[in-house]
């Protein structure tokens, strides 16, 4: 056991929070889509990628300020998600494995389409100067943008919770989640609830992609880097919002601590193996909704 200093532990914990917020913002759209619609959306990574490209295009060709790119990415990618849901996903709701495969096909088409349109060379999304500086907390140094991502993620989670637990639409969504037929018999248009939820989930992914365009470079393949983590957050969390928040916090901190003891890649390997073992004992995730076994 190497000698571990107090400062480096605190540093790792704070870094872990930052990692957690990044994974959570990547996973939140996926959580909503999986939790409500029950679709494993393999094209999620490409929704992130589309969000990044949307910001790139709006910023470099139309000079839109970065903070306005965020809502713009939401709208554009939500619209794309809407088209995909209406054109394809809605026909496959009762075939979960097939939605997984069909959305993989969608992801291939989106990735290649973007590659043909924009080429394979990296693009960049720039941020206002204030985000580029670093802040010192005693012995911890963190970039302002990462703090912004953390705050933004918290705001998005709060907004989503408000939408799903405090509005009429949210009540309809939860009713459809619990029992689609019963909800439909009370006059809720389940089809429209699914459609809207899918679009919102896609839009949230687009907004996350806008942030990732700043954190890393914009490439047609950038989505794949985040999508496995996003899936694991959803699976460990069990597909609920609370679950995803807890799961991303847990996995982010573990990743950061393992990385402190070894290195980033080995930490990731260890984390994945731990998650597989964890799911052996809790196949339905941390906060499993008690569901009747079919």
């Amino acid at each position, binding site marked *: 056991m190497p000698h571990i200093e107090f400062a480096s532990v605190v540093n790792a914990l704070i870094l872990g929070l930052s990692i957690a917020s990044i994974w959570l913002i990547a996973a939140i759209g996926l959580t909503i889509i999986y939790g409500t619609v029950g679709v*494993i959306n393999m094209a999620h990574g490409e929704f992130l990628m589309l969000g990044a490209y949307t910001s790139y295009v709006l910023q470099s060709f139309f000079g839109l300020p970065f903070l306005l790119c965020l809502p713009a990415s939401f709208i554009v990618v939500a619209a794309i998600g809407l088209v995909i849901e209406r054109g*394809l996903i809605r*026909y*496959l709701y009762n*075939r*979960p*494995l*097939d939605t*997984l*495969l*069909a959305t*993989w*096909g*969608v*992801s*291939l*088409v989106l990735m*290649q*389409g973007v*590659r*043909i349109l924009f080429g394979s060379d990296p693009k960049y999304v720039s941020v206002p100067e204030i985000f580029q500086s670093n802040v010192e907390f005693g012995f911890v140094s963190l970039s302002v943008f990462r703090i912004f991502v953390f705050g933004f993620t918290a705001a998005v989670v709060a907004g989503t919770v408000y939408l799903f637990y405090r509005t009429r639409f949210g009540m309809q969504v939860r009713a459809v989640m619990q029992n689609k037929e019963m909800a439909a018999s009370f006059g809720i248009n389940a089809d429209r609830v699914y459609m809207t939820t899918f679009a919102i989930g896609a839009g949230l992914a687009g907004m996350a992609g806008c942030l990732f365009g700043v954190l890393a470079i914009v490439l047609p393949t950038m989505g*794949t880097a985040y999508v*496995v983590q996003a*899936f*694991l957050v959803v*699976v460990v969390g069990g597909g609920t919002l609370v679950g995803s928040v807890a799961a991303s916090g847990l996995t982010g901190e573990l990743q950061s601590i393992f990385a402190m003891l070894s*290195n980033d*890649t*080995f930490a*990731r*390997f260890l984390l*994945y*193996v731990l*998650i*597989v*073992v964890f*799911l*052996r*004992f809790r*196949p339905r995730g941390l906060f499993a909704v008690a569901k009747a*076994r*079919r």
Partner: protein
Amino acid sequence: MTKNLFHDKTAQWTIYAVFFLCLAAIPAFVSDGFLLNQFATYGVYAMLALSISLCWGFGGILNLGQGIAFGLAAYGMAMTMQMQSQDASNPLPPFMANNSLEQLPFFWEPFWNTGFGIVLALVVPTLFYVIFGSLMFRARVSGPFIAIMTLAMLSALYTLILDMQPYTNGVNGISPPAALHIFGTDIDPYSTKAYWIVFALLLLTTVASKLLTQSKFGLVVQALRGDPERVRFLGYNVALYETVIYTISGLIAAIAGCLWVMLVQYVSPAQFDVTFSITMVIWAGIGGRLSLLGAILGALMIQGGQSYLGDQFLNTWLLLLGGFFILVVRFLPRGLAGLLEKVLGMVADRQPRESGPIARPLAPHHAVGASEK
């Protein structure tokens, strides 16, 4: 109503025989070693599609991590072939020296012996599948979650192998300098010998898989694809059946991994790439996951098309492939083989009822018809 020719066992076996006779005829027409090597590589892909069809088509286990078995076996084989070029005076492969290793790592030691090395290349992935499979299936992880878990495991191995740079040469991979030397001869990857080895193993695995799906075991496996709960209530150990079919498919993928390295003399973490494993599923999906031969033909068609169009149009090709795959999932969940099944079913329905409702087709006669499709 006559029986659908698609379900006729004699017709099926005839088609398989015709298919393998065609493959056996290839060396007589192709003298170019490079082309022959490419055909043999397609044979390896066919074997992978076969393994996916067995696991996903018949067992209903959507395995997005078949690269685990393929890649592990490929690494085992590459290590074996690498050690054939080393000797006692020079025990370190060059890349290890470049990564400033002083000694051969302990897990490389067994690969001094070629036979033992190949056995390890097959046993390690198979054991991995047994352990991982029994963990998952006993926890009753099912459906899409298996897909995610296999995907996660695949990514985990990918990062691990990338990370162990001094032992695996990281992203550059291992490229053994010489062809495989076994049973006293060199297996030149561009020779007919290499082609026949792939052919023989493809034939063997296909026939074994076909027999397996027709056995009682195969029937239970297909039943649990339909409704695992009901099979469980009938008293079968569902987890055991799932683990066994998953492992068998892993073993076939492992054999494919060994052959692949024999043919290309190269392995890298790219074999653990998520995209490659999902490509295998696309082969089986488009060809027809419920038909072993359909899946095999799917792999041959798609890989053949890809190399025919060349790297120039690769992006467009992948775009079209994705689009086509969406259409197949949406409209033809059983792939092109399912389309054939439907067409033959319609043909059977339109034929006049010759001898009442329990009419049995004249199998050999129909078999000839089937081979002419």
